[in-house]
């Protein structure tokens, strides 16, 4: 291999004399054997971004090209794991090196010694033609998740041999294939894929089912589809991370990939410590069995942060290709963009807006484009849903990252500082958020839960909008100026906010709300609103309505009744009706 030498060190960016190397190639730098990636070429010189600190590196030290691009290791053993942005296994690193991450330590992402119980696919026979994406067999990766071992996308040919059921290490051969161009290929449980290249599929489909998260403001008001793209912008402390963690906990996806990109170490510890103890509401198994973490915290080297997003989405695509619904959460895409900006700056590229390079928008779009529901090469169906947090400087949504992201995604969950300041969580603003997936979601809700869903949702949003206008009037002339009907609208809008939109992640009962309960609550509140209006038309005073005991119960219904207690909510609905009827009667008798 042709080696080269370091000629300049400028922070994480190293220049080396390294003729013949390719853009994107991995290299080892210096005596410390730091890992890096070639990101630019100038004559015989290569520009290298180094994933580790370059402290004490000197010009003149050796650089070795490795001949392959940054690639993810794919195979059983990923789930439950935690990796850094270039897929170094953080648990194994701790076992070997203690609490700090040393430089130049090279450990494989996946454990080579562990044996996995492999069951070959029934219908495959030697002599059969096989192609990329076909299922060779399976491994029960965790109790909750079946890992299908696929023919790598670039392999096609005659199956010569398929291993029988048994326990195999990752690198042991489980199949041999005669390929027309590359001779005989040996396949194992382990494959690699370059992270910056999307994995292929046969066809893209439209999303059909909502990604359920158990959060009312998301599922009921601003739905996202499986295979969709969503963003959560918000100022610091508004609740982006909490919301993403809530989604990671309660979503009805098969696999969750959580990428901590330039954020706090403690937030990952929180997941690592709490998820194993929590049960997945769908499979009944420990949540950690379907979860995988990529962690490049804010104090870890910036360049690996840029790579972490691509690693995450490659892992997501790999499970998608096995026919799973995968959600990848990235916290925060702004830190990824900043890493991009930092490297661009050191390369001397022309900044266009707020220091970001001109290709920011296209890189963002290309990343989100990897979301989708697809027909896999193997003939199945799978999806990758991407949800990115955005951290706009000063909470200003007109800044480049938020702005470009908004153009790309389908569902926008805008977090509001004023809601967060009033401890209204999730602080998703109902005026600034949007979802392009309401129609598709409505089909699902109408079939699965209730035909009234869309109407109820619309009524609730209209009510909130009307109350917002009325509150402007109140601020000018006081509440006395409102008609009884208007007052009722203002009061029930407050009820919508308290009884529906607010949902504390920390509340044991209310942290997860099933779709049935979501609709029951929505229906209760909007039903009350309508019946109340009728009574007001018949001159029942608003104050009498507000004193109904059932109203106080409704306000607390979300955390008094669990997801199984739908009967209690039906009872409440009846109680409300009875109390209202009684009230109507009283006033009918009173009136002359």
């Amino acid at each position, binding site marked *: 291999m042709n080696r080269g030498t370091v*000629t*300049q*060190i*400028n*922070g994480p960016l190293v*220049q080396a004399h390294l003729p013949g190397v390719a853009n994107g190639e991995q290299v080892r730098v210096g005596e410390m054997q730091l890992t890096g990636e070639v990101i630019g070429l100038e004559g015989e010189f290569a520009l290298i971004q180094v994933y580790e*600190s*370059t*402290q*004490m590196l*000197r*010009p*003149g030290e050796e650089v070795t090209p490795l001949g392959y691009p940054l690639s993810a290791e794919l195979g059983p053993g990923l789930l439950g794991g935690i990796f850094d942005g270039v897929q170094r296994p*953080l648990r194994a*690193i*701790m076992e070997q*090196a203690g*609490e*700090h*991450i040393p430089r130049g330590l090279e450990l494989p992402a996946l454990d080579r010694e562990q044996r996995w119980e492999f069951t070959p696919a029934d219908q495959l026979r030697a002599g059969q033609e096989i192609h990329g994406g076909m299922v060779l067999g399976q491994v029960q990766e965790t109790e909750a998740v079946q890992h299908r071992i696929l023919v790598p996308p670039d392999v096609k040919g005659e199956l010569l041999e398929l291993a029988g059921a048994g326990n195999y290490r990752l690198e042991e051969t489980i199949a041999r294939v005669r390929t027309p161009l590359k001779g005989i290929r040996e396949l194992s449980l382990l494959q690699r894929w370059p992270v910056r290249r999307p994995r292929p599929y046969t066809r893209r489909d439209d999303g059909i089912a909502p990604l359920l998260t158990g959060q009312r403001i998301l599922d009921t008001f601003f739905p996202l589809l499986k295979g969709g793209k969503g963003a959560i912008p918000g100022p*610091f*402390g508004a609740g982006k991370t909490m919301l993403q963690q809530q989604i990671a906990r309660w979503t009805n996806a098969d696999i969750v990939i959580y990428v901590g990109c*330039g954020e*706090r*170490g*403690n937030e990952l*510890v*929180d997941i*690592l*410590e709490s998820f194993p103890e929590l049960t997945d509401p769908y499979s009944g198994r420990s949540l950690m069995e379907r979860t995988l973490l990529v962690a490049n*915290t*804010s*104090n870890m*080297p*910036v360049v690996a942060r840029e790579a972490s997003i691509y690693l995450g989405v490659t892992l997501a695509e790999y499970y998608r290709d096995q026919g799973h619904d995968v959600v990848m959460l990235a916290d925060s895409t702004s*830190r990824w963009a*900043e890493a991009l*900006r*930092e490297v*661009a*700056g050191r390369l001397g590229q022309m*900044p266009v807006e*707020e*220091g970001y390079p001109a290709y920011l928008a296209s890189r963002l779009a290309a990343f989100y484009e990897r979301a989708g529901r697809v027909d896999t090469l193997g003939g199945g169906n799978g999806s990758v849903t991407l949800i990115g947090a955005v*951290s706009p*400087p*000063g909470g*200003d949504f007109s800044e480049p990252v938020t702005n470009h992201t908004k153009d790309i995604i389908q569902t926008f969950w805008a977090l509001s*500082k004023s809601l967060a*300041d*009033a*401890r*209204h969580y999730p602080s998703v603003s109902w005026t600034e958020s949007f979802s392009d997936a309401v129609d598709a979601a409505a089909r699902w809700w109408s079939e699965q839960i209730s035909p009234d869903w869309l109407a109820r949702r619309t009524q609730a949003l209209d009510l909130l909008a009307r109350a917002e206008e009325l509150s402007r009037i*109140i*601020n*000018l002339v*006081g509440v*006395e100026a409102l008609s009884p009907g208007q007052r009722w609208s203002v009061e029930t809008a407050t009820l919508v906010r*308290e009884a529906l939109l607010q949902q504390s992640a920390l509340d044991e009962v209310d942290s997860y709300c099933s779709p049935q309960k979501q609709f029951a609550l929505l229906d209760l509140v909007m039903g009350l609103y309508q019946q109340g209006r009728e009574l007001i038309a018949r001159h029942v005073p608003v104050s009498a309505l507000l004193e109904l005991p059932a109203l106080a119960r409704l306000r*607390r219904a979300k955390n008094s009744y669990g997801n199984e207690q739908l009967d209690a909510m039906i009872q409440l609905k009846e109680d409300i009706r009875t109390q209202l009827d009684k009230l109507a009667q009283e006033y009918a008798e009173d009136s002359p």
Partner: protein
Amino acid sequence: MKAKEYRCASAARTGLLFLKGVPGVAFGDRVSIRDRHGRKRNGQVILSSRELVMVQVLEGTDDLNLDDTWVRFLDEPFELPLSPDLLGRVFNGIGEPRDERPPIISRLRRNVNGEPVNPVARAYPREFIQTGISAIDGLNSLVRGQKLPIFSGSGLPHNRLVAQIVRQSRLLGEESRFVVVFAAMGLSYADARFFREDFENNGVLGNVAMFINLADDPPIERLILPRTALTAAEYLAFDLDLHVLVILTDMTYYAEALREVATAKGDVPTRKGYPGYLYSDMAEIYERAGRVHKRHGSITMVPVVSMPSDDITHPIPDLTGYITEGQIVLSRELNNQHLYPPVNIPPSLSRLMKDGIGKDDTREDHPRVASQLYAAYAKALEVRNLASIIGRDELPDLDQRYLDFADRFEQRFLAQGPDEDRSVIQTLNIAWELLSLLPGEVLSRVSEADLARYHHWEGGK
């Protein structure tokens, strides 16, 4: 290379020294510079190539000339010698004594930049620290290993608040107090004296290691000072098993020094001229707080950040808020009303509070009481705003109660003396006293059981 002295300066400006013809210098290397008066300066290599080496000079480049500047490359990063004798001492930004006593001698030396902690090795912070201050303990609790900054402004009493936190902080049911690492960047003489005297009067001076860069000391030294101080803190916490409270004041001067050097280097400026890496750079500092598995000690960090023109969206407080685990925001308005501590409640937050309070830590009702106080005060502020437009008398009865609540909340709950050390139970009891001004129906954040037990509604006044 270490022994050799080079005279090869080709340029010197705004804190940067450029050297030609010394190939093979390590990036990050520590440099010793002798100027024409024979005085020593310290530098660090921030770019190294075969042709050119760029050195950042901590004491600045004023008064250097090119011909009589001698440079030695020490072949090592900046390191701090570590020993228990750090406590009770005063140092400059690179750990040299500032107190006329001999330097620390120790075989144990560590690179001041530290190494990133493996997230897997961290232990989640969850032990409640009682600061004795209601605004913090009741609503924005601090836990051991948290980084919780104070966002302040010129003329606001952040020093007094920090001193009170240092004096009063303790763990419930534990005798051991904190040792303190005090890192000052750009501090005025008066403020430095205030802290020194406060520590001395309280007899804690022997438990404090001070790293001081005063307002008239070279600004570039501020870039290395918090790193040096945190290296000391890590040693005290994770080698000596102590609970360490780190005060960093004022991070705004730190960030300004960073901007100064970045501008000189020609880095691409982003908002308000700060370099794009301000976030990552500050994160390297703030993320050194925390707890680590199997280590008894901890680093709790209280940085002071003054908000230029009281603007919380200014890049320094903004990026700090994106890194730290909450913030205590001080309010000029409350301060003008002579209310101490003038904590602006709505934008203040402690993210680690949820795991440090409640049944086994403080009291069972604490999480809900905090949430309810926040919600009620937010509503009360809205009403106060409305009252200022349409007049108090126009308001419905309930709204008038909210107005009373807001006033009493500020005077009874927020306000306290700089020496008043309230137990968290006292704090919670005051909270219920205030919530009892409001009818139970509107208190939807607390449980029915809480209401039955603590709420003493008497139909108002």
